[in-house]
């Protein structure tokens, strides 16, 4: 590998600068700066209302009311529409599942594919991996909530994203499917996919994440590895303190 390639690999896949988002008087995001390195799994934690979902909304282009700048693999995606950002390799799931209820499970996956070729085989293969292939022709609405969240995750995989933002992907999912989910995250990560995950379960964060970012009241409170975060006094006050 030459130095240029190495420098590229070390490049942050996602860079956010001075991101601010106000809702009336509420500063949901208050001058957020962050960088996510390529190939990592980053945990995003923080108390309720600290701005985690808002951060995902602004990065992914769904919420276009923010100020600041966002780069994906060195390319500015600031102000781009969500479908353009998705086609650039950044995918995200929603905190509350947003499977298309009146489309079949298979159609839910197919619509998210960015290839012009028929991706049916690919979609069925993904379904097989989570043992949901028998639901291919079932309507999205007929699945349980946990299954819907899993489908929403599979759906974005149809585009081979480089970076995936997951907003509480395990919430409402039963333990069996949860294990399947985390297992897939690990396998994809091993193949180079970068993740940023909002998750309340600290065990999962400890196990999966090489880095943790703590948000509080719209600001990055601290970032570091799990150990550093857990022993930080501010975090204990802001997060673990309240969780107790």
């Amino acid at each position, binding site marked *: 590998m030459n130095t240029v390639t190495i420098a590229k690999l070390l490049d942050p896949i996602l860079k956010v600068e001075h991101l601010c988002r106000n809702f009336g008087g509420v500063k949901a995001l208050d001058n957020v700066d962050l960088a996510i390195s390529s190939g990592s799994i980053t945990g995003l934690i923080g108390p309720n209302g600290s701005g985690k979902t808002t951060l995902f909304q602004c990065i992914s282009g769904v919420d276009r009311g923010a100020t600041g700048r966002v780069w994906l693999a060195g390319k500015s995606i600031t102000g781009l529409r*969500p*479908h353009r950002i998705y086609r650039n390799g950044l*995918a995200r799931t929603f905190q509350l599942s947003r499977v298309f209820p*009146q*489309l*079949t499970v298979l*159609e839910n996956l197919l*619509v*998210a*594919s960015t290839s012009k070729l028929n991706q049916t085989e690919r979609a069925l293969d993904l379904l097989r991996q989570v043992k949901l292939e028998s639901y291919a022709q079932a309507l999205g609405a007929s699945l349980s909530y946990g299954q819907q969240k899993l489908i929403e995750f599979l759906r974005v995989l149809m585009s081979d994203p480089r970076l995936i933002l997951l907003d509480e992907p395990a919430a409402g999912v039963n333990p069996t499917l949860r294990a399947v989910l985390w297992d897939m995250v690990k396998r994809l990560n091993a193949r180079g996919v970068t993740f940023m995950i909002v998750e309340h379960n600290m065990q999962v964060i400890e196990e999966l994440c090489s880095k943790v970012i703590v948000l509080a009241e719209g600001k990055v409170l601290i970032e570091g590895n799990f150990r550093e975060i857990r022993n930080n006094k501010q975090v204990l006050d802001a997060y673990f303190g309240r969780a107790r």
Partner: protein
Amino acid sequence: MHQQIIVNITLPVFLLICAGIAPLLVSQYHLSFGLQVFMMLALAQSWNLISGMTGYISFGQVVFFGIGAYTAAILLPLGLHWLPVIGVGTLMAILLALPLGLLTLRLRGPYFAIAMLGLNEVVRIIATLWVDLTNGGSGISLSPTLLPDLSTNYYSMLILAAVACGIIWVVHGSRFGLELRAIREDEAAAEMVGVNTTYAKFVAFVGSAAIPGAVGTVFTMYNSYINPTSAFAPDLNIQMIVMVMLGGSGTFWGPILGTVLVMGLREILWASLPALHMAILGVILLIIVLFLPNGVLSLTSPKIRIRFDLTK
């Protein structure tokens, strides 16, 4: 799969052949009725393209019908042959749809519906006031010598209905149709999985304007008289909606079924209860919304509803 081929390929072809030879067999009265059925079917399928597929309910799709109707009423007396007139009417509807789509498709839900309704009213008033061009409220009467005969008009309308159905048939099974249906389900989520929603809606909207434009021209040739109220008739728009929703919106067979049911019912009721006709349509709409939100078609087997089983 076998059943699907019968329902989705053999049956439409059979119906088309029957409709094609009908003029040789039936009376003028029934031919005229058939023409009206095809007119409503073409309009219903075009409404289905924008509103059934994407969920953007339009109360003003009839504006494109009116534009087509007036285009024919103005051009035919100048001595133009009827065939290019159909083309010009279609083009006029498309030309109107281009800026309209850019403006109105930004609006979501009820705002779009109301904007389209308002727009139709505006155009109707313009047609009433622009007396030099449209002869105002007294309308335009065309001499029968300028117009094609009934069976020609019947075939024109049949072809337009077939084209409209063909468009839905193709779109429904395509990637584009999938995108439209995803927009109907959850527009923001569709955009988040790579669907260029603005573009998809715009193409569907323009396509759904072209057919009523063509249908409007043939209506003028058939009816030989139009005025602002008959060309820009909100109740015609309501009928499209009822037919699509009664049958099953966003599907291929739904609007066909709905059109046949409503036209059949109308034929029976019209003679006995002409005054109650619209009221009865209103009641039907109410019943569908309350008890059969996915239309009559939802009572049939899902094998028929899903056009092709993708898992083989």
